[in-house]
């Protein structure tokens, strides 16, 4: 390795995505929204639960997308933020008897703080080093949660059991369906927030840092502030997803938040297309349904199927679902002309 690196000519950590290419058009968005609203009306409770998890992981992948696709920083440690969010919600509900909906913003704020603080040392790191530090964070998190000191609060190895909320106002729908719509509302709110964030001044600052840090600082962007801010926002959203996850699964335990989860989320982002926000839901579908299929073929094979598919994505469709969507769009365009 050379002691002197050419920074300007160096390959960027993440490929640049123009901000227009990050979202869907209004028409397509409405169709997707309509599908998401109608979907649970026709399926069984267990599938509704899976759809809820789809939205929750979608949020977590979205958060990682903002961090990586937006500001060009890596994280293999999203499971740690997810865990903190989940535990915050669970502890508030169990020990403080708080309403489930109120615990989510608190989980978000606490994770924002945690992410912002973790972003401080992460500032000095870029590329591989950052991946390494967050990788270590993710592997360390389950052990921290099992720690004897916090056992009264966290329930130690056993974890905590959370009650599933009933539909309010005596609405005649099942708990699962209520939770689905509740999650959907939160997801839409956060999606709109994210889209607007990336279109704002801060979002442009993120992208400038992603594309060329030195040029960005020369233009007067506070690189340190925006990098940590991106970490904070990403962690905050992941925390809300974690809180929702705890409510949906009704259970939190340290071993639910291992490095495997972080890898899954990372994989979801790559499959969905880095920097393409709607891809998050595609990536999330991938990480929820593919392991089920793989385990149907052979137990213990899910990791291999995961890995092989990931290599396929890297080699064949390096831009993930975004690329597929674009090709589809072009085909539709041609079809219309004819």
């Amino acid at each position, binding site marked *: 390795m050379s002691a002197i690196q050419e920074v300007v000519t160096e390959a960027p*950590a993440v490929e640049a995505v123009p901000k227009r290419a990050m979202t869907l058009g209004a028409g397509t968005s409405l169709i997707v929204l309509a599908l998401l609203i109608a979907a649970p009306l026709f399926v069984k409770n267990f599938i509704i639960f899976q759809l809820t998890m789809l939205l929750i992981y979608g949020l977590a992948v979205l958060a990682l997308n903002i961090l990586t696709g937006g500001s060009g920083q*890596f994280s293999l440690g999203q499971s740690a933020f997810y865990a903190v969010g989940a535990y915050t919600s669970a502890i508030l509900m169990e020990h403080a008897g708080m309403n489930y909906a109120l615990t989510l913003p608190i989980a978000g704020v606490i994770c924002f703080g945690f992410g912002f603080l973790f972003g401080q*040392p992460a500032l000095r790191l870029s590329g591989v080093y950052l991946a390494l530090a967050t990788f270590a964070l993710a*592997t*360390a998190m389950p052990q921290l949660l099992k720690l004897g000191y916090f056992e009264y609060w966290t329930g130690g190895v056993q974890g905590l059991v959370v009650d599933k909320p009933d539909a309010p106002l005596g609405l005649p729908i099942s708990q699962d369906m209520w939770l689905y719509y509740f999650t959907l509302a939160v997801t839409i709110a956060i999606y709109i927030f994210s889209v607007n964030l990336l279109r704002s001044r801060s979002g442009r600052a993120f992208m400038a840092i992603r594309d060329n840090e030195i040029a960005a600082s020369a233009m007067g962007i506070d690189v340190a502030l925006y990098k940590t801010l991106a970490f904070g926002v990403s962690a905050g959203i992941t925390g809300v997803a974690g809180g929702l996850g705890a409510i949906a699964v009704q259970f939190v335990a340290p071993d639910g938040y291992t490095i495997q989860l972080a*890898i899954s989320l990372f994989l979801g982002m790559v499959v969905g297309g880095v920097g393409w926000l709607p891809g998050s839901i595609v990536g999330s579908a991938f990480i929820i349904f593919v392991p089920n299929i793989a385990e149907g073929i052979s137990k*213990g094979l899910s990791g291999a*199927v995961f890995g092989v598919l990931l290599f396929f994505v890297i080699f064949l469709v390096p831009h993930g679902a975004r690329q597929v969507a674009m090709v589809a769009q072009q085909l539709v365009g041609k079809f219309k002309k004819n």
Partner: protein
Amino acid sequence: MELFVNQVLAGISTGAIYACMALAVVMIYQAIDHLNFAQGEMAMFSTFISWQLMQWGIPYWGAFVLTLVFSFAGGIAIERLLFKPLAKAPILTNVAGFIALYAIINSVAGLIWDFTIKQYPTPFGSSPFLGSQLISTHQAGMIGITILLLIGLFFFFQFTRMGLAMRAAASLPESARLVGINTSWMIALGWGMAAAIGAIAGMMIAPVVFLEPNMMLGVLIYGFAAAVLGGLTSPFGAVVGGFLVGIFENLVGTYIPGVGNELKLPIALALIITVLVVKPAGLFGRPIVKRV
């Protein structure tokens, strides 16, 4: 005082493992500028291969040598097939590739050999070393092998044409190509050597932690910590870092109450972050100067 000496010695012997792992990490980092997250899994797989060979009745040292050959070839094959095409891709793609490799190897090993833990033999025996109660012969053997490995690598890199070519290819690829070095194959060679060194680390630690598909995760994190502490650009630093991390881990576990086995990974995390923040180049690494 005796407790202290005891713990330092125990630290040195676990440190030998971390040193081996860190050496493998540094080898790859030197060759391609990336940290290989699948390094631990590759080592684990090699260890399983040697175990399987022994099950088939091949004596320990025979299996040892065969495994090294297999790992060396395997490392080169992985580079040629999967990572050579990614050489110019963004870092993100490479990290995704390592993660994919990690998942594949872990899962395939579990599929072939099951997730139950297995006994793994040691060639050195486990009686006390030279009549001392402090370390066993296996631990002494581990330390010896690590040091031999380091000396071997030192001679390879300093005094052979191949070693010189590898160093040239790593430090200034373009100039190296101009003087006729096949840089692409030097990278493959780096992968092969890293895989073989990882295999040695795996076979040395397996008698201590028992053989199972997830055995290397903790070791890998400590290997990373050691490599970062010693400096990612220095094989010597990696070994020193490995011993220091081993000693540090043992002393913290002994003298700070409440920090037992259950906090091993958070300690490594804290160590990595502290080093990266305070001295990013590590103890023996060259600081990276950036030219705009």
